[in-house]
Structure formats: structure tokens, C-alpha cells
């Protein structure tokens, strides 16, 4: 049944269209520099072999995607940048096997509270506080207790309240405890459970009955047996909030996102690790779309056969019991590698007149192929960045895949499959800053084919005749010739060096350059530049893009008029490809060929390169944040790449035409 949704779709939009919207301030429960997705460990304080965390049990509120606000209890991190503001769930505590773990608890709740560490092998010693039923408790209203234990077997664990548990755990007093093996951060347990440390994910499941929370908030009674959960959370958020970034300012009290990202893997490359913890009272059957996951451990115990071999199992659905933890490896080893050009799906994508887009909003990119985008019908809002794929991971108790009464919510997140090389963008704008268009359009730079974007050198004329010794000449126009710096031009069979008057129509010239002989020239003789400059721009880059790679493929042809590329047998032109660093003083938007903002792309390959009449393909990498290269304001999201080609070497350089075949920008999307 179609229903009007009260979901905060605007919040979802922020995820994909970060370039268009200014993300609100970061929640400060997380350490500085926390990644946008993936598990975020709480640093704590490490001194010798002791790892100390300072937690505060307190009250606060969370928000649900249907617009509700729910009163919660939780543990906050007193050492966080926000000095212990409320957060739900509690901080992720990561320790290393064998460390002495100290957890100091300050209780700001109106009743005694505590922490138990189920699954830890060693005894937990408590200092301060008072004896409770299951463990030592911190007294109500700013009581304290300190727990100390030796981190035991590696694995994923829960920590939770040991006081009035039917109420306090439901209210939110739980968090994840991760024990890493001494082997290193890229291992879950042992050498057989190596994973990519950049792809470590935590999915902590829980449930909420808002009636109980309201009763606690208002001090009224509540029958636990009447519990009817309405919200089902992953990492303290309900879908679609689960796919917001870690520390999103939209969810100030729910700092942990649950978006799982992977790229196609190849056999032998390490998989992603997904740690699942069920903090709730119900068992949850969790269904990962897209690929089987491999269960490698349960409750911090690797699955091994009695003989020692791995007894891991593969799943497209796995029920994780109340209080249980399970660790999974995830791979994306593609077998079919569907590709629109080389290996198309045997069934063509559906015609849009035969399909519907739900709620006018989609994560679909308009193409069935990974890394490709297509056009979507007018009015459909796309959350897709560059043709990445999305699959829901959700509880298959489908009543939990809902926010109270609206579906596609609750205990769910998305798996995002990124294109293998990252996102790829192609130019949508081009400007010739030194030269004239011979033929083609910017679209020809988007496909590696036989169509080229072709630029000829700029020309002008001499209004009067030229003697063989004249060193000051006037030209009809200086437009398109460099405004500064020495450069060569050619008149008939003579190459001249312009050394003065650049940017004006009266030039000081040196005669008979680069192996040519000074000669007389008739009135109206053509003056041809021996260089071309043009740039193209990829637009729409999301804020936070990283690791730019620029690929350019092109050639230079010996004729400015022929329709096929005339060979250049010797003395090839030199090509320098530059990128606009918009932040350099005087860059002035890189609007001219000589702008200070153009910086040559760093080797490898070294520049300039000799490029003759065969296509040369080069890819340059700019590691790190891309922010300096992404325009802002009216140039927002724009990356400009300039191709400068000159033929300033002897003997006797002749005019040429620069033909661009392909220009592409790849990047890691945020």
C-alpha cells in the first residue's frame, strides 16, 4: 500500500550531493579525523600496557527518521572532543589482546548503574562503588566505579549494564568492545582472518519500545512483558539515518553510521570485515543483499573444526541471537563483469516507460552497470554519485525493516559497491585559451574512440610587408597569443621569437629562429603560433573527493587542415598537461593560459612529453584531498585540466594541430 512517507529525505540527499549542500557541523563525540564510514574506535588513553576509558552514564534523546524523538540512557565518552555529550550507543572501545583495560564509570543517572563485559575470559576487578546483583555498581547521581580486566581472546564483544537490566539495557546502556589480536589491526583473529583495515565495519543491533522510554522519562510504571518494539536500530540509528556519515551533524547524539562500502575484489586481496553485535532482546535475522557473507566467528570464538581447519560458513541470511556477536568477511569477486561495451547484460535495461521509481527518489544511477550513470526521468531525485551500486542489508523479520508504521526503515543499512577504479568523470566544458577550434566537441573527450576534440594554433596577419631584418612588427590582433613570456611564431618558412610587446599588436621579435632563415614576407602574410592551449573541465565533483587521477590521451598532427591526422615524422611537439589549483594566489580562476593557477601534473610520467601523430595515453595521480583542485562558488565542483602543446624546437618547426581523444578524471567519492 502506497503511503506518504515522513522520512527525512533531505537528510539523505546530503550524503550524495555534498557539493550542493553545506553539511552541518560535525558531532564531536568522535575523535578528530574519524572516517566518514566504517567502525570508529574510541582512542582512550594508553599508558604502558594499560588502556583507560572514562565513561559517563547519562540521559539524552535520539531522533528517528519518522520524526520522533526518543528518551534514552547511554554511556558517553568523557574524553571525547565534546567532553562527554550524550551519545547512543556507547563509545566503541577497541583494545588489544593482553592489554589491561580500565573503564572508569561516572553515573549521572537517577539510579545505580554499572557495566558488565560478557565474554571476557579474565575476571573483572572493580574499585569503588557498591556491590550489586551482577557486578559492582556506581551509585545514583554522580557515583563512580572503576573496572579493570585483561583483554582476552580477540573478537567482537558487547558491554552493557549489569543493573536493572530489563530496563537499563532497553534504555540504551550498551556498546561494542573490540579486542584486536596482537597480530595487528588487519587481522580479526589469526592469519586466516586477515582483512582490509580500511574496510572494517560494525553493525550493532538494538530495539526500542518508545512506550517504555516514555514511562522512564515520566517516572511512570511499565510492564516489560507488554514490550512492543517500534524502532529497530543499527548502531543506534534507524534507516535511512544509518547511511549518514559517522559524526553527521544531523544526528548529534547518534554518531555511528552503518554504511558498508566495498569495491570489487580480486582473489587474494583481503576482504572487508563486518562485526555484528546484537544488543537487543530479540533475535534478528539479518539479510545481506548482493553477496554471501562468510561467518568466521561467533561470540569472539573463531569457527574451527576439531582438527583445526576453518569451519566458517557462508550466508545470505543469518539469525544473530540476543546478546550474540558474529564476525563476517565480505568479498566482491565478480565473475561475469558485465560491461555495457564489452559484455552487455543479455537483457537490455528496462525502458523507463515500463518502470516506476519509488517515492521519486532513488539510489539507482540510471545504468545497470557498475561505474556508469544514465539519464533518469525528470523529477526523480538520484542519490547516486557516479554509478556505484547500492544494496539493502536488513532484518528479514520484515516488521523490523520499518520505522513504526512505514516500511523501508528500521533495522537496515546499505551496502555501497564502488566502481573498481573509483568514480570517473569526463569533461563537460572546454575552453580554448590559445588556439582555434578545428573540429569536434568536448563530448569527444569523453570516449576513447576515433573522434577527437581538435585545436589549431592561433593565427593573425601582418598588415604590411616584412623585411628580412625588421625586429619590430605589428600584427592585426594579439588575441590568443600569450600575454607574457617569450614565444615562437611562424611566418611563411621563417620562425620568429617574440620577446617584447606580448599582449599588444606591436611585437619585438628575433628573426630566423630554430634553424630557419630570416626572409622577407608579403603584406597580409599569415602569422601562426607554434603552441596551443586549451582546457576542459569535469564538473559536479562531490565535496570531499580524494585521490584525483587525470588521464589524457591525444596526439598532434602535421596539418591544420587535413581531416585525417597527418604524420609528424620528427621534431614532435611537447605536451604539458596542467591542473588548476584554484587556491594559488593569482590563479584568477585559471581563465587564461598563463594563469598562475596552472600547475603541471606531477610525475610520473615526467613532463613535458613528446607527443607526435600517434595517441599517447598518460595518467597522473594527485594523492590526498582534492579540495585545492575543485572549484568553488560559480565554479563549484569543477576540475580544470589544461593541455599546453608547443613546438619550440628546431629544426624548422611547422604549425601543427592538437587532437584530444580522451580526458578522464577518476577519484574516490566521499
Amino acid at each position, binding site marked *: *500500500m*502506497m503511503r506518504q512517507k515522513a522520512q527525512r529525505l533531505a537528510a539523505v540527499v546530503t550524503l550524495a550531493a555534498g557539493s550542493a549542500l553545506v553539511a552541518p557541523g560535525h558531532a564531536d563525540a568522535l575523535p578528530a579525523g574519524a572516517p566518514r564510514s566504517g567502525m570508529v574506535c574510541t582512542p582512550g588513553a594508553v599508558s604502558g600496557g594499560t588502556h583507560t576509558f572514562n565513561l559517563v552514564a547519562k540521559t539524552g534523546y535520539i531522533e528517528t527518521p519518522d520524526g520522533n524523538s526518543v528518551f534514552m540512557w547511554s554511556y558517553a565518552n568523557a574524553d571525547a572532543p565534546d567532553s562527554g555529550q550524550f551519545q547512543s550507543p556507547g563509545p566503541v572501545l577497541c583494545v588489544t589482546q593482553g592489554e589491561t583495560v580500565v573503564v572508569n564509570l561516572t553515573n549521572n543517572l537517577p539510579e545505580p548503574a554499572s557495566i558488565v563485559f560478557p565474554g571476557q575470559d579474565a575476571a573483572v576487578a572493580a574499585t569503588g562503588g557498591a556491590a550489586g546483583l551482577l557486578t559492582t555498581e556506581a551509585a545514583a547521581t554522580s557515583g563512580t566505579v572503576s573496572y579493570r580486566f585483561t583483554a582476552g581472546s580477540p573478537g567482537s564483544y558487547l558491554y552493557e549494564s549489569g543493573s536493572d537490566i530489563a530496563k537499563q539495557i532497553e534504555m540504551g546502556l550498551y556498546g561494542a568492545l573490540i579486542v584486536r589480536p596482537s597480530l595487528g589491526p588487519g587481522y580479526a583473529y589469526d592469519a586466516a582472518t586477515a582483512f582490509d583495515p580500511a574496510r572494517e565495519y560494525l553493525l550493532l543491533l538494538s530495539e526500542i519500545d518508545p512506550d517504555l522510554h516514555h514511562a522512564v522519562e515520566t517516572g511512570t510504571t511499565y510492564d516489560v512483558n507488554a514490550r*512492543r*518494539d*517500534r524502532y529497530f536500530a543499527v548502531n543506534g540509528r534507524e534507516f535511512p539515518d544509518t547511511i549518514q556519515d559517522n559524526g553527521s551533524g544531523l544526528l548529534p547524539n547518534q554518531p555511528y553510521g552503518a554504511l558498508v562500502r566495498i569495491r570489487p575484489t580480486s582473489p587474494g586481496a583481503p576482504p572487508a570485515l563486518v562485526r555484528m553485535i546484537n544488543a537487543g532482546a530479540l*533475535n534478528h*535475522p539479518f*539479510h545481506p543483499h*548482493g*553477496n*554471501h557473507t562468510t561467518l568466521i566467528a561467533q561470540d569472539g570464538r573463531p569457527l574451527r*573444526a576439531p*582438527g583445526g*581447519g*576453518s*569451519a*566458517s*560458513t*557462508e*550466508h*545470505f*541470511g*543469518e*539469525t544473530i541471537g540476543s546478546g550474540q556477536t558474529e564476525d563476517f568477511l565480505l568479498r*566482491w569477486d*565478480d*565473475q*561475469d563483469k*558485465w560491461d555495457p561495451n564489452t559484455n552487455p547484460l*543479455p*537483457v537490455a535495461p*528496462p525502458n523507463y516507460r*515500463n*518502470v*516506476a*521509481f*519509488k*517515492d521519486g*527518489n*532513488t*539510489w*539507482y544511477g540510471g545504468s*545497470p*552497470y*557498475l561505474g556508469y550513470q544514465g539519464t533518469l526521468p525528470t523529477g526523480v531525485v538520484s542519490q547516486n554519485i557516479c554509478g556505484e*551500486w547500492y*544494496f*539493502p542489508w536488513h*532484518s*528479514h*523479520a*520484515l*516488521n523490523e*525493516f*520499518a520505522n*513504526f*508504521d*512505514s*516500511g*523501508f526503515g528500521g533495522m537496515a543499512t546499505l551496502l555501497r559497491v564502488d566502481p573498481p577504479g573509483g568514480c570517473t568523470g569526463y569533461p563537460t566544458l572546454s575552453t580554448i585559451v590559445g588556439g582555434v577550434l578545428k573540429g569536434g566537441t568536448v563530448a569527444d573527450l569523453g570516449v576513447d574512440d576515433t573522434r577527437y576534440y581538435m585545436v589549431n594554433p592561433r593565427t593573425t596577419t601582418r598588415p604590411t610587408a616584412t623585411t628580412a631584418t625588421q625586429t619590430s612588427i605589428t600584427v592585426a590582433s594579439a588575441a590568443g597569443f600569450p600575454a607574457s613570456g617569450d614565444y615562437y611564431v611562424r611566418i611563411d618558412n621563417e620562425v620568429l621569437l617574440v620577446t617584447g610587446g606580448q599582449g599588444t599588436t606591436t611585437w619585438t621579435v628575433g628573426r630566423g629562429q630554430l634553424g630557419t632563415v630570416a626572409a622577407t614576407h608579403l603584406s597580409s602574410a599569415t602569422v601562426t603560433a607554434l603552441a596551443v592551449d586549451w582546457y576542459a573541465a569535469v564538473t559536479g565533483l562531490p565535496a570531499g573527493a580524494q585521490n584525483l587521477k587525470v588521464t589524457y590521451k591525444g596526439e598532434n598532427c602535421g596539418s591544420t587542415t587535413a581531416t585525417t591526422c597527418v604524420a609528424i615524422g620528427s621534431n614532435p611537439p611537447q605536451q604539458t598537461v596542467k591542473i588548476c589549483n584554484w587556491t594559488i594566489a593569482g590563479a584568477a580562476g585559471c581563465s587564461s593560459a598563463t594563469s598562475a593557477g596552472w600547475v603541471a601534473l606531477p610525475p610520473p610520467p615526467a613532463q613535458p612529453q613528446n607527443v607526435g601523430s600517434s595517441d599517447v595515453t598518460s595518467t597522473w595521480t594527485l594523492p590526498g584531498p582534492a579540495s585545492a583542485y575543485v572549484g568553488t562558488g560559480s565554479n563549484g565542483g569543477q576540475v580544470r585540466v589544461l593541455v599546453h602543446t608547443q613546438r619550440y624546437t628546431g629544426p624548422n618547426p611547422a604549425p601543427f594541430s592538437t587532437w584530444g581523444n580522451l580526458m578522464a578524471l577518476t577519484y574516490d567519492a566521499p
Partner: protein
Amino acid sequence: MKAMARISTRREFLRAVGWGAAGVAAGGLIGMAEQNSPLGARRAEAATTALSLVATDGYLSVPGREGNPLYIFGFVPVDPALSVAELISTYKGHTKHTAPTLEFLQNDDIKITLTNLGLVQRPDLTDSHTIHWHGFDLPSPVNDGVPEVSVAVPIGKQVTYFYRPHREGTYMYHCHFEDVEHVQMGMTGIVFVRPAQDGTSIGGFTRFAYNDGDGSTGYHRHFAILFNELWTNFHDGDRDIQESIATDYDPQWFTLNGRVYPQTVLPNDSTSLPADMRIATPNPNYDDAPDYSQPNSALIQVNPGDRSLLRLANLGYQQHSMQLPGIPMHVIGQDAALLRNGAVDTSYWTNTLYLGPGEARDVLFDAPGYDAARPSGSDSWGSYNVYYFKNRDWRKLANFGSTAPGPGGMMTEVRVYSPARPLPAQTVVSQTYV
């Protein structure tokens, strides 16, 4: 009514539960029995299989709701040659639950066309539908059937999904459009993929659950049984234009292949069956003319000594604890994965099979010898020993509102027949014999 066109180059095709019952002419809609070749035939190369499903509404019957059938949505298999207009005139408002069991061969190319016929009872409700092959590896989102991350099929439209399954085993499929509602409304079925190993002879078997290499997953007979629940709120609410709150979920009936006991032990539906062996549901939108909307039997008929494979999948929202008292169960696969890790055998024997929503299990059991002294019965085929495959949670063995004596709900029978009249070799999954 036309017989299903053979547009496939495959010799084996869709095998819908009940359409190939030996001794039972094919069901009322589609004639396929005579076209079924024996299972296990091997082909030299991968082939393309195409089939067509429609999505629409209808009604089904459960004890306790006599005279008041439950409103459902569902999938019906149809002749791919029919036009949308022909499909609407024939099938709109006559859906079935469960959806047909689909059988494919590993590495084949599969095209499934879904046509959304719309709803007769709720012309105001313009829901789209999709097919989600639950558990399929590495699909393009456009073939995964999740409308929010791809597309859905609106009323009167057709979309063809494509699959090339590389992993053999038992899966399920369902509509993913507003799935908490549409799955509960009945848009669920089992799909399984036979291993490439099928047709070779290993360990005395020619049919296998998995590419085991050693015959350890070989079987003589196999049965696909889907677990579902029925919750009146969604069914009556959708019928009566009332809002249902998903998190109120509290089902009243617990089904195997869309039937509750004793419906489960009736044979696969067929027009050739006598009236008392069919489940007729008066369709209030067609002057109470009967629909036979629960086509798929859950009856397990075997000969003594037969090794049987249960292909089990749960598309309810609750976990179910299933037992087969008297016969131990060997769980050899789960979630379309052989329970073996290199040299480590991870299969297990159990008397209690716990199956969560969205999970699948492949379970082997060996039929005991026939013993007239054991609990017995007889049916139109002959005398048998009876074993009950049933939920251990006896609250799920009741038919809500029914005054009929005896158990109901999530239970069926394993009938081990007297050697006096052995069953013939099984030619289709879940074949029933009368």
C-alpha cells in the same frame, strides 16, 4: 487456455510444484507434465530459460475463516506469449500463494518477465511490484528487484529480469516493493539451482543438492517447502482500505507452501482431482466462483530407503523450530552454500531445525523401512507409515479460530509407503501421487 509455449532451448524448464504430478493431469492453468523430461539430463552447454509471472490479487482459504477468505497478493506463472491485455482478462484477481517453485540449472541464462496486472479488490491501490531473487550473488541492482535502489514494475507494465546463477542451492524469491506488506500478502516462492554435477553418476546418485564431488548430497526425491505466516491485519486491512502498522505484527496462521495442516497433505492442485482433494476459495470479486489459489502441496511421499532432500526456506517474519520425530535430519546446505569448508565437513545432524526469516536449509533424510506396526495410514495410493514434519512450538500448530479437532498450522506428513505399491521415480520437485 493455452499450454505454456516452449520458448526455451532448455529441455528442463520451470517446474512448478503440482503441475507434474504422476497420475494427476496437469493443473488447471498450464500443461507441462508431458513436457517434463527426467531430472538429471545433462546438457553440453549453458542455455537460456525464459518464463513469465504475473502479479495480482486474489483470495485463499484457511480453517477458521470459513466463508471469509483471506485477501492476498501473489505471483502466477503464465504463458509468455500472452499479451498484457490477455493476461489481465485471464489472471487479474486470481492470484495464488505460494508462487511456483522455480528450478534452474547452474550457469544458465535466465529471463523472468514480470507483468503487474493490478488489483481487482483495490482499484485505488496502485502498488508496483518487483522480483527479488533472495540470496543471488553480485546482481546488478536492476536485477535485484529492490525498488528504492533500482526500479519497480507499475500496473500494466512488464519488465524482464536477468540472472546467471553461478551458485547452486536453495533460494527464495519475493516482491521487494513495500516488502513488509507485499511479502506478508503472499508474494513468495522458492527458487533453486541444480548443480552442474547433476546427471553424472556418483555414489549411486545422479541428482545432487550441490557440486559435492563425492555424492554426499545425492538424493532420490526432493521437496521444496516454504514457511510463511498469515497475519489478518495486513490481509483484511488491505481488503478494507485500512492502515496496518507493521510493528504490530502478530500472525494467526503458520503455513507450509501457503497451506496449513491438514491442507498441507492434500496433493498439488490439479483439475483432475476430486473436489475433496482441492482447496477451493470462493472469490468475492467474481461472484464467489472458486479459485484454486493454494496450488502447492507440502506432502512428502517416499518409498522406504529413499534419500530425500528437503529444500526449506522461511519467508515468514518469525523463526521456526521444525522437527521430524522418528527420522534424524542431516543439514548439508544452508543459504545456497554446501556445508563444507575445504576438507572440513560443517554439515550436522539434528532433530530440531531452527530456521530464521530469509534463511534456507537443505536437509537430507533417509526414509525408514515400512513397518505395519508403526503409526500408519492409507490414502488413495496405498498404506504408509506416517512421520510428522512439524513446528516444535505448538502455538504454531493451531488454526486460529478453527473449531476442527486436531493439530493445524505448520505441519505436514512424511508418508513412507508400503513396498506393496512403490512410488514411481520422481520427475518433478515436490511431486505428489494419488
